[in-house]
């Protein structure tokens, strides 16, 4: 047993300890190194020429005036790029429609060639001696467009004009999961059916660091070095080589240094870093590009954007009999890297929630529109699924007059039911949903809520309380399963533990940290496993030139998959150490025990500490021929299953009916993340996720006008949560360790954003006494709902 979980309790730096973050010092002193901080000698600056139209044909690009400006090195077009052999940007997940036809992929040139299909789509790039010159020159590039009617409305997209000649009805796929006949039969035998029409509002991720790239081509060996804001530099390298054909994989070095937040938006391979790299070869100089925030709004992949009808069938006791879901999902103008999987395999598979619903059927139409591509944003499909399930369950509870906590509890999958196979293709390994609900009810003081509601009423305020009992599938993913379902890559992770001759350790991980604190938590794992000081462990990530391989960070996978890879690597190190110790002590490896950093020959007083063994490995004076010197180990960990974090969120809020202003009084989140490596960091992840979920529920929405112009294209128009929009959070955990990874961990990065939106909206609708209100529930919408509720007895808004 490791020292961290010994009976004496948690060590002050091992697994389970709230170790302060080691990466913080550079960030709080301004010494972080983000991509736009990288300066190269003789660097040039790139500014992109972007489409002002949502849909148009490119008739002519006249760059003569720009090229005549002093300091302009080149104006390069998408057509030149394509002619130079740069291929389309791929989508990495092949979804098959319910009629077995493959999804219809809209061709996605890295920069537009003949036509543009969303406002902000890049079609050319100016390279100049300074950013100012590049900006001025970009304004001098004249592009002649033939404007075409654009398809903007998601609701009308299927019957609107066809965007791509080869894609009828703008329909990428029509995907289904579950047993339709069985589900329909459940509805026929139901005593009660609840129904809701829901929209899941389109969001813009808005990591605080805008995307950026600094690229250099080395003509002496035909290789590129690309600094870029990526959550997964090896995946970027794979895509740029195997699909985009920029250069062979071994000729690409991708460095993602300090990255200022991602939330999904920096998973994808984008036109800009690809073009910057290609351009650096064309001008034989390094090229630097930093996204303006205005460009970020237009060109970072957006998130969510679903329209859904959901129906829940129940019997007289309130037991769920069947769930039927029909969703239209906006994919935007092109398929971004994982866009196809988000509203299908990351959404439909989660519709069982925490419940024993015996029959579930979901259909999803993925449609193209002339808007920015939509892809994974914190939670990616799972917030949308949770919103559907937790809104309809709350609705059913109200319609049947059953306490919403009680209705949920009645339908929970019980601890004795695990492993539990859902009707939508997942096998949950473990959980205890009643335990997190109980703890949340207690923290939220649910039994005295009625008194608080009455007291608020006496002040003229409307108080409401809303639940959300969410589940998510994390730790993406078992490669075999993911690839059977259409994933283009396996989703394992790799890690290397390199023990240095003096006994300290350099760890290389394929996971990438852009705020998650891996330099601390991963060091905790390795120091705990090897029984060495935390200060003796250094974590290296984010550089394909240093880390051998990796699939990166998304889907709350880093500790569950990347952390597990490090555990396997430390196991190999310990095994090798035992062989070395056995040799030095003239014994057998299986007679050597290891605990707290010390190797002991069983039933003897002979022992060696870790540093002594490390030194011996590199000074092999007496090693026999079959014992290799050195002490380093690499492991690839491919999980057996997803992990299933779950929990209960309870939101209590108060509405001023005269203004529609909402004050969140209390937000309780009780989450089961399995074992927790660093509780401080986990709490921080939950806080951030909750703010994003509350932002979705109350503030944020990407709005396009009918011509496809983004109306919410800056922080003045797109309402980001500010400090006074959110409360202090009440955060706690319950623990059922994951059964299939060596750390017992599940992942915590997305839970806050997944669980919170329905809790907030359930509280808003409870307060006003209405069935539905669309997100974001802005003050104006809430005020209108209050007025309408006064004059009638409720209804949808």
């Amino acid at each position, binding site marked *: 047993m490791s020292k961290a979980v010994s009976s004496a309790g948690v060590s002050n730096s091992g697994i389970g300890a709230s170790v302060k973050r080691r990466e913080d010092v550079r*960030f*709080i*002193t*301004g010494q972080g190194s983000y991509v736009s901080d990288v300066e190269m000698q003789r660097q040039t600056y790139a500014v992109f020429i972007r489409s002002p139209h949502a849909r148009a044909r490119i008739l002519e690009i006249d760059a003569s005036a720009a090229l005549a400006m002093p300091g302009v090195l080149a104006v390069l077009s998408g057509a030149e790029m394509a002619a130079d052999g740069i291929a389309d940007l791929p989508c990495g997940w092949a979804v098959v429609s319910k009629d077995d036809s493959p999804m219809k992929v809209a061709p996605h040139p890295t920069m537009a060639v003949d036509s543009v299909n969303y406002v902000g789509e890049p079609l050319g790039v100016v390279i100049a001696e300074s950013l100012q010159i590049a900006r001025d020159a970009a304004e001098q590039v004249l592009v002649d467009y033939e404007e075409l009617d654009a398809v903007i409305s998601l609701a009308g997209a299927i019957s609107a004009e066809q965007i791509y000649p080869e894609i009828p009805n703008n329909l990428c796929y029509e995907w289904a999961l579950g047993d339709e006949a069985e589900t329909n039969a459940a509805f026929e035998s139901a005593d009660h059916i609840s129904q809701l029409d829901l929209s899941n509002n389109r969001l813009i991720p808005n990591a605080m660091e805008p995307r950026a790239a600094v690229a250099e081509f080395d003509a002496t060996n035909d290789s590129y070095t690309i600094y870029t804001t990526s959550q997964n530099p090896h995946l970027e390298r794979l895509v740029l080589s195997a699909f985009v054909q920029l250069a062979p994989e071994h000729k690409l070095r991708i460095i993602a240094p300090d990255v*200022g937040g991602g939330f999904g938006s920096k998973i994808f391979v984008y036109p800009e870093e690809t073009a910057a790299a290609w351009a650096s070869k064309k001008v034989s100089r390094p090229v630097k590009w930093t996204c303006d925030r205005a460009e970020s709004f237009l060109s970072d992949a957006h998130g969510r954007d679903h329209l859904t009808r959901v129906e829940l069938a129940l019997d007289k006791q309130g037991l769920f009999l069947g769930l039927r879901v029909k969703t239209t999902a906006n994919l935007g103008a092109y398929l971004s890297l994982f866009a196809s999987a988000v509203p299908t395999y990351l959404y439909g598979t989660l519709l069982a929630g925490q419940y024993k619903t015996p029959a579930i059927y979901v259909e999803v139409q993925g449609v193209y529109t002339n808007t920015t591509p939509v892809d994974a944003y914190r939670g990616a499909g799972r917030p949308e699924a949770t919103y559907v399930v937790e809104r309809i369950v709350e609705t059913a509870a109200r319609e049947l007059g059953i306490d919403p906590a009680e209705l949920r509890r009645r339908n929970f999958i019980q601890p004795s039911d695990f492993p539990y196979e859902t009707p939508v293709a997942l096998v949950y390994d473990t959980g205890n949903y009643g335990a997190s609900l109980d703890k949340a009810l207690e923290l939220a003081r649910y039994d005295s809520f009625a008194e608080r509601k009455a007291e608020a009423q006496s002040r003229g305020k409307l108080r409401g309380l809303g639940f959300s009992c969410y589940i998510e599938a994390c730790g993406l993913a078992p490669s075999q399963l993911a690839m059977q379902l259409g994933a283009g890559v396996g989703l394992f992770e790799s890690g290397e533990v390199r023990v240095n001759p003096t006994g300290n350790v350099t760890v290389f991980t394929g996971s990438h940290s852009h705020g998650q604190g891996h330099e601390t938590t991963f060091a905790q794992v390795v120091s705990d496993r090897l029984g060495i000081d935390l200060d003796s462990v250094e974590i290296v990530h984010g550089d394909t030139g240093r880390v051998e391989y990796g699939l990166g960070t998304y889907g709350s996978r880093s500790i569950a998959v990347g952390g597990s890879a490090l555990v396997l690597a430390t196991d190999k190190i310990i095994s090798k150490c035992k062989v070395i110790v056995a040799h030095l002590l003239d014994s057998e490896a299986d007679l050597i025990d290891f605990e707290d950093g010390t190797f002991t020959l069983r039933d003897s007083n002979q022992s060696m500490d870790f540093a002594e063994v490390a030194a011996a490995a590199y000074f092999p004076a007496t090693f026999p021929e079959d014992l290799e010197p050195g002490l380093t180990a690499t492991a690839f960990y491919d999980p057996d299953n997803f992990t299933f974090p779950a929990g209960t969120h309870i939101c209590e809020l108060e509405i001023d009916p005269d203004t529609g202003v909402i004050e969140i009084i209390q937000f309780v989140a009780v989450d089961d993340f399995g074992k927790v490596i660093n509780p401080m960091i986990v709490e921080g992840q939950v806080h*951030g996720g909750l703010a994003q979920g509350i932002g979705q529920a109350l503030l944020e929405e990407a709005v396009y006008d009918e011509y496809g112009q983004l109306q919410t294209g800056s922080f003045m128009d797109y309402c980001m949560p500010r*400090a006074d929009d959110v409360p202090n959070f009440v955060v706690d955990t319950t623990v059922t360790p994951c059964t299939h990874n060596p750390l017992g961990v599940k992942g915590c990065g997305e839970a806050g954003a997944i669980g919170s939106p329905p809790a907030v909206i359930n509280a808003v609708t409870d307060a006003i006494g209405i069935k539905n209100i669309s997100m974001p529930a802005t003050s104006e919408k809430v005020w209108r709902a209050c007025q309408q509720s006064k004059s009638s007895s409720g209804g949808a808004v």
Partner: protein
Amino acid sequence: MKISVTVNGVDEELEITPNALLADVIRDQLYLSGTHIGCDTSQCGACTVHLNGMAVKACTVLAAQVDGQAVTTIEGIGSPADLHPMQAAFKEHHALQCGFCTPGMIMRGIDLVNNSEVLDEAAIREGLEGNICRCTGYHNIVKAMFNAALEMAPGKTTEQEVV
């Protein structure tokens, strides 16, 4: 044009263009990359620095305006071996994740403590109106600022502890 400006206690003579923003001059001419640029509409606050001891968003100030004045950036308030109490509180209370908004938050936090009459949770939250963080949900930023205030100016904080 030429300006003379004291940056982090050092006198600098700079040749600037009349339209140069202070934020760009700090980053591109002084190579102080701790001042970050997170938007182009002066909303996010990542570029917050001190001008004569008061917090300003460096993207709202022309470099020409700071001639003869004193600018302090994140690099000028403390060092790894000698952290400012606000920097130390951010680490202690896990008030940062990706770190991008952090320099601006810290500079704003110091200004809030120095230039507020009273500092409780509500005042801190209101005082952060101009600084956006996407990672932390603000919970720990508020906590860090409150605790830094306890150390920097104990008389200004209310008794109520921010948990």
